[in-house]
C-alpha cells in the first residue's frame, strides 16, 4: 500500500495539495501541511499523487511500502 510522506520543513503553505485532495491533506493554523492519513489505497493513488505533485516546493510524495 502506498504511503504518503511530507517534508514539513519544506512546506511553504501554498496549499495546492489541499485543493487537489482535501480528504488527504489539510493545512494547520501556522500554514503547514497536515496529512489526514498516510496509508493510500491503490485505487486513489493517481488523485493523491497528482495533488502531491502540485506542491511547488516538492514537499509531498508517495512511497511504496
Amino acid at each position: 500500500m502506498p504511503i504518503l510522506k511530507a517534508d514539513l520543513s519544506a512546506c511553504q503553505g501554498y496549499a495546492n495539495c489541499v485543493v487537489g485532495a482535501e480528504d488527504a491533506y489539510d493545512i494547520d493554523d501556522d500554514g503547514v501541511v497536515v496529512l489526514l492519513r498516510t496509508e493510500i489505497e491503490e485505487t486513489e493513488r493517481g488523485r493523491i499523487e497528482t495533488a502531491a505533485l502540485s506542491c511547488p516546493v516538492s514537499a509531498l510524495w508517495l512511497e511504496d511500502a
Partner: protein
Amino acid sequence: MSGVVIVGGSVAGIRTARALREHGYTGSVRVLEAETEVPYDKPPLSKGSVDNDARVPLISPAEGDQLGIELLLDSRVTGLDVEAQRVSLESGEALEYEHLVIATGLTPRKGAYDVAGVHVLRTLADARGLRAALADAERVLVLGAGFIGAEVAALARRHGVAVTLVDPAPVPMARVVGADLGERLSALHRRHGVDTRFGVGVTTLEQYEDGHRARLDDGQVVEADVVVVGIGSEVNVAWLAGSGLGIDDGVVCDGLGAVAGAPGIHAVGDVARWDGVRVEHWTSAVEQAVCVARSIAQPATSTDQDPSGNIPAGHVPVAYVWSDQYDWKIQLVGVRDVSTAPEVVEQAEPFRLAATWRDRAGRVTGGVTVNWPRESVRLRTAAARGGAA
C-alpha cells in the same frame, strides 16, 4: 510520425512529460528546450536570497532516463509544419511528432528601457546574473512594481542594497488587490527602506559611468549600479509564424488545451490561451499539463470526470498565485472586482490578513491573504464551489 514532442522545458512542459508517463503513455516523449540548463522551476528565481543559487530542478537527467523522457537541451525550435507534423530546429534538424505540446512560455519586455546592462528576470541565467550584480551593488533601480519588481526589491533589501522602485501607477498593485491593500503593499516597501517613486514615469534611461542614470518625469534623477526591468512579458510565438495556428496573445486553444483546427497539437502554460483566457500562473501550468497529458495518454476518458474527485478533467479551477515580499507571504485567489471593497479580517502578533471578495449574490469569487495559508485554502475552496462559504 512518432510520439510526443514538447516544445519548452519549463514547468508546463516538464509536468506534461511526467504526467504522460503517470497516465500510462508508452510512446516516445521528447522535450525540446532552447536553453542549455537542465529544466528548472521559475518562481524561486525572484525569491530566497542574493547568496543562494535559485536553481530548483524540475527533473534530473537520471529521472529523465528512468521515465523515458528525452531532454534535448540547446534545441531551439524555429518552425512548425502542421501538415507534415514536423518541427524544425535552429540546428537545421527536423523532428516528426504524433502529438505536439507547445510550452514556449514568455520573454520579458524591456520596452523603452532596452539599454545595455539592464537586467530582466525570467531565466536561471538572468537570476544568476542579477544575483551577481546585486552582491556588489550599492544602489539598484527597479522599474515596475508588479510581482517581479516587488520581489526583486525585497531580494535586494534583504541583502542591504538601497532600492529605488519606480512605477507609473500611483498605487501599483491596486489593479490586482484593490486600492486599500495596494496602499498597504506600497507602505510595505517603504517600511523596508525602499525609496518608492509611484505615479512617476521614466523619461530617459542611459548608461552612466559604471551604472545607469534615469530621469523621471517629475524632474528627479536616479542613479544606480544595477537596473532591473519588470514591466511584463510577451508570448514566445514567433516560431509559429506561418504555421497557420491561431495566435491571439497566445496560442488559441479550446478548454482542454487542444489547438483549434490542428489535430494532435496542444498548448500549455503561459503561452496558451485556453477558452479565451491566458494565465501566467505556476499552478495553472501544472493543471493544464496534467489535463493535456491525460487527453493524449487516455483519449477516450479525457472528458470524463476525475475518477474519484468532482473536478472535470478540463476544468481549470480557481486562479491562484503567490508572492513573497519581505515578511509577507501573499496569496491571491480567484476573481476580485477591485472596484468593490473586500471584507477584511486581520490579526496582529503575528500579523495576518484575509480579504474576501463576493459577487452581488454574496458568493465568494476570490480574495487575498497575507501570511494566512489556511484562509487562502478556504477562499479557493469556496470560490471553486461556486461561492458557498
